[in-house]
């Protein structure tokens, strides 16, 4: 897992990954108009407030789409291919669609699920799998 492509975490993304380390899926939410926005950014596009908080979500959603990449790929993904990648609409706000991986349990590689069993509309739930001390990757299981 140490070979994985890891996200570079900037100021905007820091609260997300802090919450991830606690096993929480939190989304940046405007303090003024209460709307969620993603990806995180300094200003709310609906009321232009720069004040935000990170609201706890249920971490549940629905598969909106998925793909199955085949080579050529980056070296760290070559041996895993083909593997499914899913887009998940978040229950709290369907315009937020997380890109992620469907697995069965902690520690699973991202290619454990047979893509032919995946269907748009399936319900999923997030958990966070530690890759290192800083990064706990969101992973999704079907519920």
């Amino acid at each position, binding site marked *: 897992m140490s070979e994985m492509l890891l996200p570079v975490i900037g100021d905007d993304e820091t609260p997300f990954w802090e919450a991830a380390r606690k096993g929480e899926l939190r989304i940046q939410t405007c303090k003024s108009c209460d709307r969620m926005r993603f990806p995180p950014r300094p200003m709310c596009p609906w009321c232009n407030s720069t004040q935000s908080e990170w609201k706890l979500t249920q971490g549940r959603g629905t598969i909106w789409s998925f793909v199955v990449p085949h080579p050529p*790929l980056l070296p760290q993904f070559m041996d895993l291919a083909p593997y499914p990648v899913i*887009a998940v609409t978040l229950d709290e706000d369907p315009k937020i*669609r997380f890109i992620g991986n469907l697995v069965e349990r902690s520690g699973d590689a*991202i290619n454990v699920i047979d893509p032919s069993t995946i269907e748009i509309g399936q319900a999923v739930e997030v958990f966070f799998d530690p890759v290192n001390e800083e990064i706990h990757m969101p992973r999704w299981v079907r519920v």
Partner: protein
Amino acid sequence: MLKDATAIVGIAESPFAKKLEASECQLASEVIIAALEDAGIQPAEVDGMASYTMENTSEVDIAKNIGAGDMSFFAQVGYGGGAGPGVVGLLAMAVATGQCEVGVAWRSRKRGSGGRPWAGAQQASASGCWTRPFGLLRPADEIAMLTRRYMHQYGATREHLCNVATSVRKHANNNPKAIMYSRKMSRDDYMNARWISEPLCLFDNCLETDGALACVVVSAERAKDCPHPAVYIHSVAQGLPPQHQTMTNYWNDDPLRGPAWACADALYRNSDIQPKDVKVAQLYDAFSPLIILSLEGYGFCERGEGADFTNDGGIELGGRLPVNTSGGGLSEAYVHGFNLINEGVRQMRGTSCNQVEDADSCLVTAGEGVPTSAVILRR
């Protein structure tokens, strides 16, 4: 108004190949000189330049190579394959407003032999940090995500994508300059091709090409003195819709209504030519589903009808709307869509390898899925 105030009077292109020996700078210089010869204009008269922000050759280098005089306008358009018609639009605006008199636009790219951009970044920063760590690595993966959703939402199938790939291949089979000129593609060839990112197979992806192209823009008045019939820039626009994310447009209300719709609104607002009047189109095709989305976005059919539009030769010569008559990015060459611009000019001059006889206007678009641009050319 920009309408018909300027015209494209010269075009040129290098050979297209997986690998060309000449540098991008040499290729760019050669095609610009050739386009100026096509226009009957001396290099010293060039006083305006426009290109892509992803272009590796600079105005300074090009001006030194071609022997340009005093340059009074130079600018670039961003977002990769979204730039093409926007680059021509910059020149049209500059010429129409007197900022320059002779503008050249170009794209020179060794994408065939020069490596794949997605393979470079080993870490996932900025916008990529929400997609790349999960294995959504390449433009093909990013567009495949939208494609699967489109198929689910509107009942489209691989048969429709196959329509697109085989239709533009047929056009390339009539174009001796096309990389796929001598390579026919059957429906079986398509269906049996290896996957790149399901639901997209090899033939849903554009070619990887070395090549360069250029065009010359002057005022409509000056165009009368040029050797070829003027090809007027009738309307041109860029498009960036609300809450858009480049390539990974997953974070808004309607990801399948991309930049094409915003661009089309602006394009037709300033145009006497409407979708029903357009008889040939060059639609940016880094991936086959982008043609289907663009058919909808630019108003040739309703939402969800783009797939069926391609049935029964709908986008082939003789069909409802011949698309990518030189073979496009899928089968002629992939040079960030500049070949679509030059093919649009040839259609208006009446010199295409797949000439649409009654076409008096041609829509040329840039990439759907990125901040985009489009132009309506007319005879």
